[in-house]
């Protein structure tokens, strides 16, 4: 029998009306479960006039109140450590994890049962299988295996698929590169930033990664996995195909993955989630091709029901027909485009870190960079990009500085960007989520942030960074 390219062939190729019917049934079950088991949530649902019986179509989803990270954090603070969000006794849990701490005052703390933990791996299986990972593969995880959930589920997904798993926690970058080579790993999992970091390290060791056994990289943890220039650079450095995925601790696993056809976006796992895209200010739905904030409703982790959770992730949803793989799961074109809170207003111009990165990565000579915002003379916002160019001579470095400054300015309505070459190795390197933006402004010009609508383009093509080719 021919092997299926899909992890769950029936669901992944289901006609849209059937996907929606499946989602509706699961939504009713989820609301009923939540009403019965989580009084805190039940109260919110009741206040909005929502009961499981009252849900007749997916349009009724919009009657369910939105849930924010702030509410989750507040609930945890009032009733530590988990807040009044658990639908099952703590004694049924086998795993404890935290959010990575890139957003918010306190990390969110979550629990999973044995069944939920299996489900978390199951979601990763959609992604790994969909990108062509199979039992003979040898999969290396460049991951620290701590309380951040990160690639934990991916590790177990690969065991489930039948791969040989190499857990690369607690290792130096050099040791990781060596193990990838000596164990002939065929798949490597890391953040996009760390994939580039390992490539740098390999170069300094005199190793040609493109000649290694690695054929696939599975990226997660940062939007960069879908930034074309960054992805292209990773694929060139490794001589391998790279797939983007995105997940969140609030649901424990990934909700989108890129398939083997690499359509320039990620498929939504629609048989396990309902994803909505809304205007981040009004909360009103936006259509296909429009930029908005994703809301997630998850049917997986029963321990902590998640209904219409505001992710703050910016996405552009397009129909499944945007990919030729045969899946009927819609796509997020360009993956996660950034965060609602990421945007910085500099002298009236909106600046998104992702957009800056996509331009910086056009310059292969740049190893690492940082975006620095500061206040000049106590009154004016300035933006500069600090870059490391390890192998450039002075003339070449000068050329890069001039061209990069020009490109950044052109892509940002003429905003002046300072570009400075800094000493090699002076900028921080990241294993998990990279934090490349440093905002040292003293408050002038920052009033009103985040401010998205003023210049928010309404379609995917105009959102895309206007980077010069």
């Amino acid at each position, binding site marked *: 029998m021919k092997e299926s390219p899909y992890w769950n062939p029936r669901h992944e190729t289901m006609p849209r009306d059937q996907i929606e019917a499946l989602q509706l049934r699961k939504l009713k079950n989820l609301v009923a*479960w939540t009403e019965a088991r989580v009084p805190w949530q039940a109260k919110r649902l009741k206040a909005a006039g929502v009961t499981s019986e009252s849900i007749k179509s997916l349009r009724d989803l919009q009657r369910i109140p939105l849930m924010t990270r702030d509410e989750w954090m507040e609930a945890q603070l009032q009733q530590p450590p988990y807040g009044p969000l658990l639908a099952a006794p703590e004694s049924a849990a086998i795993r404890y994890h935290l959010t990575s701490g890139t957003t918010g005052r306190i990390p969110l703390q979550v629990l999973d049962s*044995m069944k939920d933990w299996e489900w978390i791996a199951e979601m990763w299986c959609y992604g790994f299988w969909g990108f062509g990972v199979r039992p003979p593969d040898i999969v290396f995880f460049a991951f620290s295996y701590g309380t951040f959930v990160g690639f934990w589920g991916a590790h177990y997904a690969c065991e489930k698929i039948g791969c040989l798993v190499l857990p690369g926690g607690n290792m130096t970058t050099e040791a990781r590169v060596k193990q990838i080579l000596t164990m002939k790993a065929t798949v490597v999992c890391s953040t996009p930033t760390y994939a580039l970091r390992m490539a740098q390290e390999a170069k300094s060791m005199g190793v040609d990664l493109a000649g290694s056994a690695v054929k696939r990289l599975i990226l997660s943890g940062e939007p960069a996995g879908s930034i074309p220039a960054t992805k292209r650079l990773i694929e060139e450095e490794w001589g391998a195909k790279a797939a983007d995925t995105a997940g969140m601790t609030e649901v424990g696993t990934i909700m989108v993955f890129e398939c083997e056809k690499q359509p320039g976006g990620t498929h939504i796992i629609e*048989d396990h989630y309902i994803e909505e895209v809304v205007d981040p200010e009004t909360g009103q739905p936006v259509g296909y091709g429009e930029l908005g904030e994703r809301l997630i409703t998850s049917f997986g982790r029963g321990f902590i029901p998640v209904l219409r959770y505001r992710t703050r992730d910016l996405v552009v949803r397009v129909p499944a027909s945007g990919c030729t793989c045969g899946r009927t799961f819609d796509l997020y074109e360009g993956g996660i485009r950034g965060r609602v809170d990421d945007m910085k207003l500099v002298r009236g111009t909106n600046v998104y870190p992702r957009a800056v990165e996509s331009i910086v990565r056009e310059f292969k000579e740049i190893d690492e960079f940082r975006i620095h915002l500061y206040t000049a003379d106590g009154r004016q916002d300035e933006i500069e990009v600090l870059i490391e160019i390890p192998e450039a001579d002075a003339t070449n470095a000068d050329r890069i500085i001039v061209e990069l400054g020009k490109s950044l300015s052109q892509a940002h309505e003429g905003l002046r960007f300072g570009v400075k070459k800094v000493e090699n190795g002076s900028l921080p390197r990241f294993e998990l989520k990279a934090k490349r933006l440093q905002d040292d402004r003293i408050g002038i010009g920052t009033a009103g942030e985040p401010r998205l609508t003023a210049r928010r383009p309404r379609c995917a093509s105009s959102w895309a960074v206007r980077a010069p080719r």
Partner: protein
Amino acid sequence: MRVELGSACSSLMACYQGLVRVLKNGSELAPFERRNTLKAVAALWQVVNGLDLDPGHLYEIGA
């Protein structure tokens, strides 16, 4: 909309239901029997869920 089960899937479903029943009623199970069966049920839950058969939740039996 729900899937028509073939014989292999029917067997899996019956297996899942049988194991859940054992865990609910089998107070005499030894630790190795109970814990390994829980692991099996947690995995089979994914199959039953993937077949749209509303497997419910398993927290009360420890999975």
